[in-house]
Every structure is written in structure tokens, then in C-alpha cells.
């Protein structure tokens, strides 16, 4: 703690140790970090900047990480970096969404999962449409959906990463899925009726 003149040598050793820990526990989650950054910022090049910033911050604070779940820890840092970035560049994305319970109509609408896409549209077309519709979801819904469907985090982990109560995670997730499926059904019908 108290520096000696030999501090640079100690620094170098500490640096090497941090590097090793970082390579073992954090770097393997680079794909997850990038995927989340991509969905939160909505742009490929911004996602790279945010990911790099987040990974460098993770490296800086690796000493402070003693948990077992490096992925959730890293995704939390990514989310903070992405939100700071959004504040600077796209503050309108950060508008709050009303938190309400699902009403009965929504509940009953949730019952039928979306039709199997391959029956309606070509794969490529279906994938493009899906990306578009996911991008249109409000940020609070999009982030829980991405953390669950793409990163396959548990509800508890999502609550930790987003700093939300678990009940809020569940209701946002339900709403995100509902909106996405409703939009998918609507747009899918439109596109097929236009003979695409």
C-alpha cells in the first residue's frame, strides 16, 4: 500500500497478474459484451467503441472483482458504458417507459406464440424483419429481452445487471415478448399479403 522506490517493478508484477486474471475470466465474454453493446447502442461502430471502453474499464477494476460471475459483472460495466454513451449521443432513447402490470387482454394475447417464420417468409427475410422489430422495442424492454433470449441470463442475473427488482424484470420481459410477437404477427401478415 505504501509505495517503495521499487514500485515500478511491483507495478509490472501486478499488471501481469491483472492481465492473467483478465484473460482468464473477462476476455472469454467479449462476444456477450459486444452483443449487448450492439443492442443497446443500435449501431455496429458504436458497439465496438462501447465494448472497447467497457473492457478497458473492466481491466482497470479487475482488482475489485471477486465474484464468481465474470459475465454478469462485465455486462453490468458494458451496460453502464452504453448508457453513458446514449446520454451523450441519443438521450431520447433513455425516456422512461410506464411500468404497469399486464392487463387481461395482453395476457390472453400472450397465449399463442408467433407462427413459425419459415412457413411464411424466407429465412433471410425473416431474420431481417426480426432485427428491425427488436430494434424498435423501447430500450428498457429491449435490454431485458436481449439479456434473456440472447445471453440466456437467469432472471436473478438480469436483475443484478440492470439493477432492477426481479418483479420488474419479469414484467418487462413479458411485455417485450408480447410486443415483439404482436409486431411480428402483424408485419408478417402484411409482408406475405404483399407477396414478398
Amino acid at each position, binding site marked *: 500500500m505504501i509505495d517503495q522506490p521499487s514500485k515500478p517493478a511491483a507495478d509490472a508484477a*501486478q499488471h501481469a497478474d491483472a492481465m492473467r486474471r483478465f484473460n482468464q475470466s473477462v476476455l472469454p465474454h467479449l*462476444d456477450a459484451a459486444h452483443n449487448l453493446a450492439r443492442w443497446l447502442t443500435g449501431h455496429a461502430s458504436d458497439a465496438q467503441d462501447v465494448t472497447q471502453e467497457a473492457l478497458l*474499464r473492466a481491466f482497470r477494476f479487475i482488482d475489485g472483482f471477486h*465474484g464468481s460471475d465474470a459475465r454478469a459483472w462485465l455486462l453490468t460495466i458494458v451496460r*453502464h458504458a452504453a448508457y453513458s454513451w446514449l446520454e451523450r449521443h441519443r438521450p431520447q432513447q433513455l425516456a422512461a417507459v410506464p411500468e404497469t402490470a399486464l392487463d387481461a387482454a395482453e395476457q390472453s394475447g*400472450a397465449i399463442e406464440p408467433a407462427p413459425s417464420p419459415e412457413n411464411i417468409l424466407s429465412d433471410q427475410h425473416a431474420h431481417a424483419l426480426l432485427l428491425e422489430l427488436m430494434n424498435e422495442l423501447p430500450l428498457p424492454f429491449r435490454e431485458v429481452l436481449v439479456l*434473456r433470449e440472447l445471453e440466456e441470463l437467469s432472471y436473478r442475473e438480469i436483475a443484478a445487471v440492470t439493477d432492477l427488482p426481479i418483479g420488474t424484470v419479469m414484467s418487462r420481459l413479458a411485455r417485450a415478448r408480447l410486443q415483439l410477437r404482436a409486431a411480428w404477427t402483424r408485419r408478417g401478415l402484411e409482408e406475405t399479403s404483399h407477396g414478398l
Partner: protein
Amino acid sequence: MDCKTLASLLDVYVDGETDLTQTLLIEQHLADCVACKARKQALADWRAMIRKAAYFPAPAGLRERLEAALQGSIEHVQIEIAAPIHKTVPLLPSMPRVARRHRHFGQRWMAGFASVAALLLFALNLNWYLRQPNAETRLATELVAAHVRSQLAAHLTDVVSSDQHTVKPWFNGRIDIAPPAIDLAAQGYALIGGRLDYIAGHGTAALVYRHHEHVLNVFVLPAGAVPADAKPEASSLQGFHLLRWAQSGLVLWVISDASESTLQGFAEAFKQTAP
């Protein structure tokens, strides 16, 4: 369990988040209901498609760039305020600045260059450290640097909140110490948030307060960070005032460009209010 109830639980079931009782009932029902089984299959297909269509793994270039940046990262920050004879002092990996965007780190010679630079910095650094009067001043220098950096880099806070019940838990699991985040708005020092920082080789909590136009950074360090009898408790460096006190196993430093009496007032208010 009927089909309607099952349908309302299907998402949660496929997420693996239903409780044991629900899971048993659902699986019993699925075993002999063709319609529900088809629903579950449709849901699984839908999710598989999302995963296939919407996942963006890191591009190869990003991985290389990052590894190069880390390899060469006995990095340095410009500390005009504290470094003698205008020198760059390696302290911590710095954030990539906007100006450094789109630069390609990917070339091998960059890494080579960086290690030569690191060696040079080493020598300078050694010289610099040897010239430092004592650990205390060195720590003060770092604190000043961190305080200045926090206001330069548009990175004053990681968690923005005047609510102590938001700020304090935010640090949980991020660092070892639980910083006493208290709002002192009534005494004229409004809590505006908190931040992770890096002091004396450790991740540190910084609490940020505002007093009129002045930003006060409060750095929370474990008690071992300074010798208990180290003097002086109040000091000034490069036009900033610093004040140190110990409480409940922690050493707190407050630093600001506000006056010394302002800091004294803050410290008094903090000591009286903190648990």
C-alpha cells in the same frame, strides 16, 4: 392445470424459472396434451430463430485491437497539474479518448513500440518516484489527479443519484468497501452520485458532492492506505484543498477547489451524520 394457465406460464417455464410445483404440473399436462406440446415447440422454434438471427458476436478486428491495447497498457495519463517538469506519469490504463478512435492498434510493431515506451516511462517513473518526498504526498498527488480527471473526462459519476439508498448499494460487489454514501443537502452539500476510481493501486469508491459551483470528490480508502499518524491531515496541492479523516475502519479524503473552511464544514457534517 388447464391449457390456459399453462399457456400463461409457458414463457417462464421455457426460461427455466417456474418453481418445482408449477414445473411438475406443467410437465404432467404437456405429457398428454397435444395442443400444448405444439405450443411449447412453436415457442422453442421462435426462440431458436431469435438466437440465430439476432446475435452479434465481436468482430475479429475488435478482439485484436483490444488485445493490442491491453498488451501495451502500462498506460499513462497526462497529469499537467502534478507531474514535475511536465512529464507523463503512468498511473493506470486510461480510457481510449475520442481522438484515439479509429486508430489501428492491430500492428505488431505498435506493441513493440509500446513496450519500448513503457521501459522509457519506467525509467522516468523510477526517477519520479525517487524524487517524491513521501508516500503521503504521492497519494495526495494521485487524489488530485483523480479529482481533476473526474471533471475533465465527462466521467464524474457512474451512478447518478442524490438518493443514498441508490448510491451505496451500487458499490456492492464492485469493490470491497461499503462507502458511507450520505446526503448532506440540508447542510449545503448535495450528494450527486458515486464513481469507481483507482487510487494507490486499488479500486476505490468516490462519492461526489456539490457545494454551490464546487464539486467535492470524497475518496473512500481502506484504513491501511495511510499511516494512522500521518501528518498533515489538511493539505493543499496545485490549488486544491485536501482533508483527511478516519472513521469506522476507513480513511476518507475530501478534495475540492472550494475553500479549506468549506471542506472543514463538510467533514464535520459528514462525521456527525455518517453511521
